């Protein structure tokens, strides 16, 4: 399977599932079990990832789980679209939150978004802190690098 432009544009994260939805949902989650059940559910919204994109250049290093990331820059709208995959459910869920915040934005808007602050707000900062070797930080770094490069082009 190869990714089509439509696969990128159809990604519901950041489009149908919006940051306000996630922030609202977190308000009503009482304990860790509910929070993580919700995170796991969000991960299930990650669209299918193309098999032929699982190559070294799309691999995000520094993860205990395997993480893959590809992008599409839509010249007409000037927006950057992302697809992410992981074999770990929690990482998938946290990647979904990152996509809800960053997917389908212009590089300028993307670079202006503070993911650390968002994770702090959701009380998930530990997962993105430099002390955790789960690769989320590397994932965000890679997305920001992409945005910076695309923005220059």
């Amino acid at each position, binding site marked *: 399977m190869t990714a089509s432009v439509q696969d990128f544009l159809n990604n519901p994260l950041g489009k149908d599932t919006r940051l306000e939805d996630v922030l609202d949902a977190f308000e009503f989650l009482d304990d*860790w079990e509910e929070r*993580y059940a919700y995170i796991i559910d969000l991960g299930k919204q990650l669209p299918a990832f193309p098999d032929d994109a699982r190559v070294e250049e799309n691999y995000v290093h520094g993860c*205990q*789980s395997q993480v893959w990331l590809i992008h599409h820059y839509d010249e007409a709208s000037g927006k950057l679209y992302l697809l992410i995959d992981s*074999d770990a*459910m*929690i990482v998938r869920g946290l990647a979904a939150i990152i996509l809800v915040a960053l997917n389908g934005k212009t590089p300028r808007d993307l670079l202006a978004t503070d993911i650390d602050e968002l994770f702090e707000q959701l009380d998930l900062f530990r997962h993105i802190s430099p002390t955790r070797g789960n690769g989320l930080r590397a994932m965000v770094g890679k997305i920001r690098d992409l945005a910076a490069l695309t923005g220059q082009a």
Partner: protein
Amino acid sequence: MTDLSVANSANKPAFDAAAIRRDFPILAQQVNGKPLVYLDNGASAQKPLAVLDAMDRYYREMHSNVHRGAHTLGDRATAAFEGAREIVRDFLNAASTREIIWTRGTTEAINLVANGLAPQLREGDEILVSQMEHHANIVPWQMIAARTGARVVPVQVTPGGELDLESFDSLLGDRTRVLAITHVSNVLGTVNPVAELIARAKARGVITLVDGAQAVPHFQPDVQALDCDFYAFSSHKVFGPTGIGALYGKAALLEAMPPYQGGGEMIERVSFSGTTWNVLPYKFEAGTPAIAEAVGLGAAIKYLGQLDRPAVEAAENALLDRANQLVESVPGMEIIGTASHKVPVMSFKIAGLHPSDIGTLLDQQGIAIRTGHHCAMPLMDFYGVPGTARASFAFYNTLDEVDQLFTALQKIQRLFA
């Protein structure tokens, strides 16, 4: 008539986990709002008050550099430092303190030996390791192999996680120069029959090294009975401080090896026309050593020595037995490493869950385990897994904590169902 036995058991207090736990202040804390359940002892064990106090006292009362001999503090520091070496010698039952080299840990000890043996290795020589080695007992040999033209050859592992003795016998050959083998697998908990392996290697004149990092927290090795040439372990896994470990080596072999690093302490005389080496063990101890850490390690071994070791071993076995009994209570859970002789280490996977998911959600419940490849990627490849979750127990863990682990795993399992 039973009075006598009662009196005897009263003299040697029965193993009391609650009392033992009071010796480890770090255990009495909450993590994520839950009482800490520390089951990552294989990665690093916690430290008893005896160790904390010994290091504190060392710095408050006797710190100075060692082996300088010009003043009283220096004498005190040297006495404490060399006293710790004697404690390690006694712990391993080495013949002489000349044979106990301080290192930063097991990793540095193996690197020291690999570099020291390099001049004796030729193209086509073989270094026998096993598929269950920690990277620390693979990579230093690969680096030396690349330099000398020698080859690193792995002994196979059985699906149950035991060393394949047929594979061992078929690979131990005329080209074998070194056998470097772990005493206990950090992933599987398997206790390897190292005495038997060493005997077979010795019969062919092969030099033997045992990686004891995961063994010493659970039992006391006897290097003379094992008849190994080298034995390495790390302080932090045996309830001592980080940053120090020890290498036992037979004096004749250590004498024949070149120094590992150059600097102060390891020399007898330095001049620009030539430098001569200090005697054992100092020849291998360049620079100011980790003095307080050596003192702390000595205190850790003394602490272990005053425990009732058979009772400790029985308590550890009871933890593993309970864990094994509870495996069925978590659907899809499978143990990796089912050797008949194991230390209390339980690697496992749960169908449909990534090890990192398990680790993250156990942490939410105050339970610390290790997840990942455990620095044993060849073994992960053998089992076809990206990693495992590993609960590794120490004598201060309780049966109740084992139960909590499984209750937590059941909860996680439901979360993903």
